């Protein structure tokens, strides 16, 4: 059981190191943004990891509401925390990139606002769980809020297509890649690295959740 997290953690560390090299050294500066483009190699993977976490919350929350198994709630709770973390990182990376490139830390742009909404909804899911007097009621409420939050993801993704936004449209679409191959390679390595980091953190967080449940059960008279 412990072998998988160790392997995942090791692979994530190696890929993160490779991603750092690819993003900071091997990939070229952008013709328009210059070296600021290197922020993309942590910003986009953070957003991708947030999407993965939101997807996990969506599926496990539905399963928990349907089946009521504690394991689904443990995974949903863990993924909600990680979705909040990675969304905050995506927002932070975007703001740090936005200041020198757009000239502002924040703009009331469709992509930015819908992403901030995602962060707030998932923070709310964590909050309702903590504030509920009954543990199971808190879990059910958090599942409902998590499902509502997940519905924001298509809105975030297509906001740059549906609305006139400051945020650029996707550079990689089906059948078309508007990036130089070394940039695509650096981005893919970092996407894979962040995916493994997410999976590693999720496994550890679920383990914590299960152990805490076992502790609570053992402490009950």
């Amino acid at each position, binding site marked *: 059981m412990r072998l998988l997290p160790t392997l995942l953690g090791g692979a994530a560390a190696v890929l993160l190191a490779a991603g*750092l090299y690819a993003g*900071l050294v091997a990939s070229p500066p952008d013709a328009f943004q*210059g*070296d*600021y483009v*290197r*922020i993309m190699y*942590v*910003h986009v993977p*953070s957003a991708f990891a947030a999407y993965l976490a939101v997807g996990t919350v969506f599926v496990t929350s539905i399963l928990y509401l349907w089946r009521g198994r504690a394991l689904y709630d443990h995974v949903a709770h863990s993924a909600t925390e990680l979705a909040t*973390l990675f969304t*905050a*990182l995506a927002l*932070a*990376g975007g703001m*740090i*990139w936005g*200041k*020198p490139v757009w000239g502002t830390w924040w703009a009331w742009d469709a992509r930015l606002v819908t992403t901030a909404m995602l962060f707030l909804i998932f923070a709310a899911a964590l909050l309702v769980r903590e504030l509920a007097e009954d543990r199971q009621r808190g879990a059910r409420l958090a599942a409902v809020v998590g499902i509502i939050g997940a519905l924001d993801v298509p809105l975030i993704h297509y906001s740059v297509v549906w609305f006139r936004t400051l945020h650029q449209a996707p550079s990689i679409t089906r059948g078309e890649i508007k990036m130089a191959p070394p940039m695509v390679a650096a981005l893919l390595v970092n996407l894979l690295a962040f995916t493994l*980091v997410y999976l590693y*953190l999720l496994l*550890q*967080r679920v*383990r*914590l959740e299960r*152990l*805490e449940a*076992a*502790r609570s059960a*053992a*402490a009950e008279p």
Partner: protein
Amino acid sequence: MTPTVAIALAYGVTAAALLLYLQRLRRRLQRVEADLQAQRRSAGPVGTVTPP
């Protein structure tokens, strides 16, 4: 903001957040494992109940 500062800030914030989260997770895991061991010890060994 120069590119070097912006890049250092973005990578630094990301690395710091992930490391802090991981450190917090590990501490909580160690604490709960220690609690469970203490609970097991205080419950006593299984199967040594004296028959009436």
